[in-house]
Structure formats: C-alpha cells, structure tokens
C-alpha cells in the first residue's frame, strides 16, 4: 500500500524519543544490521526491526502500533549489540510496545497479541507479593487470553499437564515442592509488600 503523506504523523518520532529508551531513534541510517542478525527474522521472515524504525521516522504511527509483529520480539538484545549507530533498537521497540499498550487501554487501537495480558499478569503477581508467582500468573493470564474462565482453565491444563507433572515429580512445584511445604503452589511473599504497591503506583503515574 502506498503511503499517504497527509496521514503521516510528523510528531511520532518525537513522541518515541521522549520515552526512556527511544532517545537515539533518529541516529538510524537504515543499514539493516539489526534485521540481518535477528533470530526472530530467521524464523518469521516478515519480522523486520529496520522497517519499524523507518516507519516510525516517517510517522506511520497507526501502522506501527497495530502491527502484530511488534509483539514477537524476544528482547534478546542482538540488534542493540550490533547496531553501528547505537540506536538501541531493542529499547526503541520496547517504547513502541508501551505506546501501543497505552493506545489500546485508551480504546484507540486493538492489539492482536496476548503479550500485554501476559506481561500484566506477571507484573500483578509482583505488585501483590514482591516476587513472581507462577500459579497466580497463569490463573489470571489464561482466562483473559481465552476470553472465558472455562476456556482459560482448559488452555492452562493443556499447557501445564505435562510440564506441571514434570515439576511435581522433581519436587520443584506442588504440595511438597520447592524449598518447603507448599512452595510453588503458594506465593512466596516478601515482607515489605507495601513498598511494591508504592513502586507500582509511582510507575503508573509516570505512564499517564
């Protein structure tokens, strides 16, 4: 599809550069080193970090933010390490995901990936307990991803049946797993949980 110049958003690049991690966006000279070394591109040829950068520079805000490929970056840092212009490509992509999430929360776009739900569920366990709680994460993530409690529980069982059994057999999760009784089944809580609440409150203030 040809670009419609009148639909471009000339401010988009500044919006990105204001965010921590996006500062060096304009240093990109489109050499494509990021994409040539990307392990995701190797598997999914349509995945193209260079293109995300160029589209951002051009101001193709909506096209960038609604592209589902934004959510298949493994954050492996290969692009960042190899970029000759120190664009910090991985961090720029992370900024794009954060802007997309804000837009989705405001109801302006739809994200075709469960990854924001996963990240949220992960962080919710931290906010609550101070540490990752796998079971809590799964109990929130799967129903949200599947759109219903029953479907979510089924999907969770499908994923965890083998894996959970293996963990149980090796004493890593389950009633007798971990370092003590019920570890893995129940959350490991830190004492200063009120500090976690304050941290998340502060971070959310910033995101607005």
């Amino acid at each position, binding site marked *: 599809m040809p670009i419609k110049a009148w639909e471009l958003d000339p401010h988009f690049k500044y919006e990105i550069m204001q965010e921590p991690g996006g500062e060096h966006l304009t240093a990109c000279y489109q050499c494509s080193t990021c994409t040539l070394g990307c392990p995701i591109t190797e598997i999914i040829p349509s995945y193209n970090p260079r293109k995300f950068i160029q589209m951002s520079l051009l101001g193709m805000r909506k096209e960038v933010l609604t592209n589902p490929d934004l959510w298949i970056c493994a954050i492996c840092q290969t692009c960042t390490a190899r970029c000759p212009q120190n664009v910090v490509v*991985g*961090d720029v992509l992370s900024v794009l995901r954060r802007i997309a999430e804000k837009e989705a929360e405001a109801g302006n776009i739809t994200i075709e990936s469960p990854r924001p739900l996963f990240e949220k569920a992960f962080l919710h366990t931290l906010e609550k307990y101070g540490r990752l709680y796998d079971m809590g994460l799964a109990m929130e993530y799967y129903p949200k991803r599947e759109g219903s409690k029953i479907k979510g529980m089924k999907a969770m069982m499908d994923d965890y049946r083998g894996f959970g059994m293996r963990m149980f057999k090796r004493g890593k999760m389950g009633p007798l797993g971990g370092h003590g009784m019920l570890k893995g089944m129940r959350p490991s809580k830190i004492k200063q949980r009120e500090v976690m609440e304050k*941290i998340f409150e502060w971070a959310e203030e910033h995101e607005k």
Partner: protein
Amino acid sequence: MSEKKIGYYPGCPSETTALEQDISTKAIFDKLGIEWVEIEDWNCCGAAEAEDPRLVYALNARNLAIAEKDGLPSIVTPCSICYFNLSRTNKALKSDEKLRAELQGIDPSLAYNGSVVPKHILDFLVNDVGLDELKSKLVKQVKLKVAPYYGCYLGRPPETAFDDPDDPVLMDRLIELIGGENVPFSSVKTLCCGGPLMMTRADIAFEMARKILQTAKDANADCIVLACPLCGMMLDAKQPDIEKALKIKFEMPVLYITQLLGLALGIEPKKLGLDKNIIATKKLLEKVM
C-alpha cells in the same frame, strides 16, 4: 579472590523451576569458602516482562539498597536477566542524581548511593574467584563433551556485558579447567532460547530452542551447560514438549554451570540438585563418577 562477604540474589525461579541452580550455587559458595548472605527480603527484578525502564530501576533500587545497607560490596546472581536488570539499574542510578532522589521519594527503602557491584555468577567465578583458585580446589576431572550455551545478557547489550558478544568464552574456560571438552557450538551459543516468547508464541519459542538442542545433539554433546534459569526452563523443562510438538528426540541433559563445577569440586550430585533436572542426569553421572 574477594575478601569480603558477598550478597546472594537468587531470583524468583530459584524457589521453584530452577531449584537445582539455587542449591548448586550455594553448595559451591560453601565449598569454595566464600562467605555469602542472601539479600534480605529481596524482590523480583521485573524480568523481561517489566518493559518500562523506570519500573525496573525502582524494583532493583530496593535490592541494591538492601545490599548497601547491609555493607555488602557485591550482589552475585545466577540469573542472566536478574543480572541485566540489577546492573543497568546500578549504572543508571550511579550517573543520575535526579533519578536517585526521585526513587528515594517513593519510599526511603529505595535510597541507594551506588556502592554495590552486581555480578553474574559466571563473571564472579572466572574473574573474581579466578581460574587459579578454582584449579587449586578441583578434586575430580569431569570428562564430558559439553555444549556451552550462553544465550543473552552475558555478552550483550554492551552496556552491561562482561563477555564477548559473538564468541563468549568464560564458560568454555571453566569447562576446559575441569577436564571437559567443549563441542563445536559457536553457531548457536549466543542465540536466544526463546524463553520470553514461551507463553505468548510457543511456536516461535520452540523453534528457537530446537536449533540449540539440535546443534548440541549433532555435535554429540553429553549435555548442554548454561547459566540462566529461563534458558534452563526452555531447554530442560520444556524439552519433552518441544520433542512432542516437533516430533524429534533429543534426550539432551541440561545442567547449570554451577552443577558441573560442583562435580569437579567433589560435591555429591544430590547436594548439587542433580536429581532435579528434568532430563535425567543419571547416565551422565555414571560417566563422571
């Protein structure tokens, strides 16, 4: 060899999926006579899921501040992602007074002056303890063919890296030291394991892990050795799922470097959690013991 007591930051998987990494790390600390203390009431580093750097800084400032308050000169962690988050937070806070003040404003427990050095266990063992010191404590040759897998965050990003980005060597050195043979593994040793995509795009994650497992198998390795609990989860705990989904058999044991080193230091397999790895290590141990 550092004189002072070190802070140990286990990271969340140490309590569940990477139990054996935690057990073996503590066992080698003790065997080497390293004084250590677990960071009191530590919290999660935010892993790869906290995409907002400000959130990462706040979460890790608390852990660094606890270590500082307790007079610990360093925090050693066996997890690559924890290391990355602790280390980048330390860098950001040291150079940004405004950020330090802002974080302190959230809660006094986040007040940090920048005196702690975060270290990954591999960096700590090779560069702080040192190969000579380790050599003097070895009691057993571990004659195995090993595929040394590094993954991300040890050699990249440059901001926090402590090994070569394209051809890291620290684990290779340890394996040579204990009598092991490194199989040709350069083509995949720094590839991502796919872990961060496991829960949202398992198809891509499986293919990423497959390349690593396949290369180790093709090179006739006895085992893969690594230094990150997410890599361990992907390559070890998920290996049967990958085998099933892609209709391949690997049966490739996956060990943490602390487990392998522990064997060379003469620690009993059980005290290194070698009964906790998902792919059985029994045959492997028969070759060593």
